[in-house]
């Protein structure tokens, strides 16, 4: 029995429970935030509350734009809870893809079969990509469905562009985890690297927005590359999207070369 992409199939289909669970989590986040917009985000009382909060805080949380439907969606779902869930899922999957598999001792047996190491990395990266795209797709569909009922007023084109950036941002953390996990053969190193990209990106954005003295932090924040111009409100910055996706591709390539060159399971 010869099937094409056997490693991808195993990496994509076998953990369907995990994919489903994360999709459910993201759906819950969408249903939690978006229907509340008419009563919270757009109301005058909420605006008063926002005005009463320290401006540093609203900037850090990106809540300075919460008064409009697209801004509210950008800040709450894409910028906060959705970002968090997507990043955690992507990092966990990326770190497990090769580094975790090696640490648990299973990679050795796979490599003893008729596969190339580059193929192992690429097929598993493809599985990571598709799983992240599924999650992003779930968010896209749910926001589209809730757009009308929740009076969000999001332009469909802007939503599509924002989803591409949303997926690209999570994927960058995931491929960083995959790359570090593959280079070191340790799952925890993968998780550390992936989490660093996600968390530092978020922190650099939050701090960088505070004053012009630390604005340079925005330049090294993947979070800011993706969300600097609030894509749900203003449409995607396609150059930023290409940059995010291109970096992910480069990290996968580095992982493939690194695995090709080293001893496994030692």
């Amino acid at each position, binding site marked *: *029995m*010869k*099937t094409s992409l*056997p*490693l991808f*199939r*195993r990496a994509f289909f*076998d*953990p369907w*429970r995990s994919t489903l669970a994360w999709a459910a989590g993201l759906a819950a986040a969408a249903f939690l935030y978006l229907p509340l917009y008419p009563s919270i985000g757009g109301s005058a009382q909420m605006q008063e509350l926002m005005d009463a909060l320290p401006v540093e805080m609203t900037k850090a949380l990106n809540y300075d734009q919460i008064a409009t439907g697209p801004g509210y969606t950008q800040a709450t779902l894409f910028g906060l809870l959705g970002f968090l869930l997507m990043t955690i899922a992507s990092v966990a999957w990326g770190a497990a893809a090769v580094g975790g598999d090696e640490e*648990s*001792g*299973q990679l*050795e*047996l*796979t*490599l*003893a*079969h*008729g*596969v*190339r190491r580059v193929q192992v990395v690429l097929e598993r990266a493809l599985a990571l990509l598709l799983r992240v795209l599924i999650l992003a797709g779930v968010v896209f569909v749910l926001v589209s469905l809730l757009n009308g009922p929740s009076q969000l007023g999001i332009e469909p084109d802007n939503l599509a562009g924002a989803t591409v950036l949303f997926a690209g941002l999570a994927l960058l953390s995931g491929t960083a985890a995959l790359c570090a996990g593959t280079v070191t053969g340790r799952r925890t190193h993968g998780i550390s690297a992936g989490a660093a990209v996600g968390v530092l990106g978020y922190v650099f954005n939050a701090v960088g927005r505070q004053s012009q003295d630390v604005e340079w932090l925005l330049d090294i924040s993947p979070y800011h590359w993706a969300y600097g111009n609030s894509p749900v409100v203003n449409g995607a910055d396609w150059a930023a999207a290409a940059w995010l996706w291109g970096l992910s591709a480069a990290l996968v390539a580095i992982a493939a070369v690194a695995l090709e060159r080293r*001893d*496994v*399971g*030692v």
Partner: protein
Amino acid sequence: MAIAVSARSLVKKFGRREVLHGVDFDVEAGTVFGVIGPNGAGKTTTMRCLLDIIRPSGGEVRVLGVDPRRGGPELRRRIGYLPGELFLEGRVTGRRLLAHYEAISGPVPAGRIDALAERLALDLDRHTRKLSKGNKQKLGLVQAFMHQPELLVLDEPTSGLDPLVQQEFHAMVREARHRGQTIFLSSHVLSEVQQTADTVAILRDGRIITVESVTGLREGAVRRVRFTAHGIAARDAVALLTGVPGVGQVEVLEADGAVTLSATLEGAIQPLVRMLGQLELTDLVLEEPDLEEAVLRMYAGPWEALR
């Protein structure tokens, strides 16, 4: 005869720690080659070099005529491998896992997986992570044997298996050999290798101490002999016995009336039999040679010499 696997001055270093210090051996095609040695001797490292899981720091390896570094997937499809420590996780059934390995190894004849599973009494429809160590090991064996590879590399294949399944495994090895497959297996117990292997290599501290046929090992091994004879004085019997080449540790167990002696014998048994022919024996026990003891001495011997 064709050589299926060979190593010349194989050296492997992990950082500054050298694990293999120049290992040499040849495995003839169609034979069973057993590597024994204490834990940490380098058995697993050697095997991983054959599969290109780790890369030698020096020396030359040939597997089925090809350098494993260059053989790629085509070479590995011709090999069946059982790792020393088998980890099978995930919520998949044994059948599904084997289907995955089937997709990335050589062609598997129809019905072969079920036949092997039945032989080993393995339930393929249970989730792998719920399997006991022995059952996981069986799954690993099925995975290694299913595509009837030209070369089987099995690292501690019987660990965790109960004696009945071990017997079945030995039968599988004999059948594979009969089909012309080559088997390279390791163990830290000799008795296991002794039952299946044609040739035994003893590995200790990253060096091959000796490569010997099992027959040769048996000849060189120590047997224990005990006999009871009539009509001879204990003193004379001891003198006769001590005169036989290879005899040592002579002990008189009984001396009133019948004489019972015990001793160890190393090497050929013919001289002893000739000497025993002169006696009026009432009892004779010549035990199976204890290869384990022979090997333990080999492990220990050079070590003592080094100090």
